[in-house]
């Protein structure tokens, strides 16, 4: 068993270095279970401060085409919920805080309490829940509290101030600011909605705020890092693997290069 490390540890470390944290995402089981472990460990080695592992799901309403494609291939290859826990264990063993990002039904199906216990047992830091808000997440909140897991809820530009405050108060680890109105996916330009959203979260407490906004380059990471506690990158990492089908070494090289660029970016911001 690996002891759980809360994501707040990664934010504290980054803050001590006067920079933002870099949080990298990949779905479990793509290109294979072992392949995803190798990929995520590469991202840790190259500078990710925390890891989000996606649990592939048949109906991912918040994901754009890139993540959908990888998750669908993982499902087609037969990835199971238990495999996701295996990936968590292998990545958490590096000591880097390791979260699972999952739609709700697989957790409900697994059993919420059993899931929380097994996730903690595997060394997982907690969950990011894109289709659960705190006001409909009572069961998860109770289980997470019992096992001292991170509860990362999302805020959006459309969230009212009341809901931002409610969400920040219910979150542990960090608050995920989904700062464009749209699904996941790399974007050329960062959004002018992100800064104000981060400020609204900050106004309601001292939980760190990480921004997911379609970042794919070190320059974009630097820009987001200038106002947020963390920069979340997903689709751009997935793209590294999708672009090198069947060539694991090339995929890992691409991941390493991108991580290095992004890690440099979160350190470059004038803060």
């Amino acid at each position: 068993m690996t002891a759980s490390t809360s994501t707040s540890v990664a934010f504290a470390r980054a803050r001590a270095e006067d920079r933002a944290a870099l949080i990298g995402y990949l779905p479990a089981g793509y290109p294979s279970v072992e392949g995803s472990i190798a990929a995520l460990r590469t991202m840790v080695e190259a500078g990710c401060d925390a890891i989000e592992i996606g649990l592939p799901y048949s109906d991912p309403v918040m994901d754009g085409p890139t993540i959908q494609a990888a998750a669908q291939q993982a499902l087609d290859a037969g990835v199971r919920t238990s495999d996701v826990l295996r990936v968590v264990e292998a990545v958490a063993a590096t000591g880097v805080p390791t979260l699972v990002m999952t739609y709700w039904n697989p957790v409900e199906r697994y059993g919420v309490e059993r899931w929380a216990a097994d996730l903690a047992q595997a060394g997982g830091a907690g969950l990011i829940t894109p289709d659960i808000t705190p006001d409909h997440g009572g069961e998860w909140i109770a289980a997470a509290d019992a096992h001292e897991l991170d509860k990362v809820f999302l805020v959006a530009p459309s969230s009212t101030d009341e809901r931002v405050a409610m969400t920040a108060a219910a979150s542990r680890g960090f608050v995920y600011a989904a700062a464009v109105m749209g699904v996941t996916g790399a974007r050329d330009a960062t959004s002018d909605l992100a800064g104000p959203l981060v400020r609204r979260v900050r106004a309601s407490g001292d939980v760190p705020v990480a921004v997911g906004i379609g970042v794919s380059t070190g320059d974009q990471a630097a820009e987001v890092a200038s106002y947020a506690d963390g920069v979340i990158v997903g689709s751009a990492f997935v793209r590294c693997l999708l672009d090198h089908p069947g060539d694991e070494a090339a995929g890992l090289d691409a991941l390493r290069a991108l991580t290095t660029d992004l890690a440099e970016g979160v350190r470059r911001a004038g803060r």
Partner: protein
Amino acid sequence: MSAATSPQGVRPGSFEADDRGYFGGTWGGRFMPEALVAALDELTEAWQDAMADEAFVADFERVLRDYAGTPSRLYHAERLSQTVGARVLLKREDLNHTGAHKIRNVLGQALLTRRMGKTRVIAETGAGQHGVASATAAAWLDLDCTVYMGAVDTRRQALNVARMQLLGATVVPVESGSATLKDAINEALRDWVASVDHTAYLFGTAAGPHPFPSMVRDFCRGIGDEARAQCLEQYGVLPDAVAACVGGGSNAIGLFTAFLDDEGVEIHGFEPGGDGVDTGRHAATIHAGEAGVLHGARTFVLQDEDGQTVESHSISAGLDYPGVGPQHSWLAAAGRASYTPVTDAEAMDAMALLSRTEGIIPAIESAHAIAGALEVAKRLGQEKGPDATVIVNLSGRGDKDMGTALEWFGLGDAEEGPETDLEQAAEEATR
């Protein structure tokens, strides 16, 4: 009327949702991305305000009457009744404009869209019926309309794609996932997350996150309200049973709602049994699914051990959905309604029977209700005699299904005649 809640948030009548959208404290709810919560809250408020506003309700009723052709007739199907020994009454929703009950829902939601000041609507569609209805309402109210439709479905329902295009809608084929209805819903939700400030999502059934299950129910409940009044007026009694097909469940909840508090009225939903529930190729969500969360609501879901949605199957595209409206899950769990699977073959036999005994070609969706209701009618006829009364929702007409019927029965060759013995198929339905 919908805004009226008790202090506990539960309206009179124990089958209502509470203020957070839960039926029976468990079913329904709102399992949705935070990005859509503000829009769902706005919609909830607008719907409750509208339903409490006499001017809106009057406008809705006028439009339903003058444009959609309601109230639909309650028709005594005499020859059909003779075959089962009980009185079978058909609620003729097939005669509405666009040929199904769905026009009620889209007109309600489109009027609400205009009231909210939004200029664009999106919709998902399986076979294309809700897409056509949405495109119709959008044309009538001069709203931009985009319809998401699984790529598999756009290919098998090209005529409905053409209808939507003729009405001015943009049809977007969805290639992701299984490229059918559930994926069209996913894609419409993805659109909505990015367009929510000016776009309304015209959800096609009484499922999804709160307030859709209750709101769609309110827009469709005229079916049952009319049928109840018509039955009392024409026969002086309430029916012994009401019956409808259940995919997502909008026509069924539309019929059932008026009768929920009539304890003596049996309520029967008939689910698509596909090739047979034991084959695994079916869409009998309540009968064979398990509780879970899909498209924002806790309800019965066809899912595997890991909670991944399983692809459903039905000969009727309009019933081919692996979830079901959460109020049906609650009515099933509470024992107020029963839900029974009807196979593809049984539905097609009923299609032949109704065509031949009444000169009415039903939608295959509605044929499921006919098939199931005949069993109920036979039992009630034996128990209570020939005055036993069953109301069946004939939710749509069968024009759209002629391609399927042509293939199933081997029709279309005037020299050879049908390959299937239609007489025998019709007889099967009464057995």
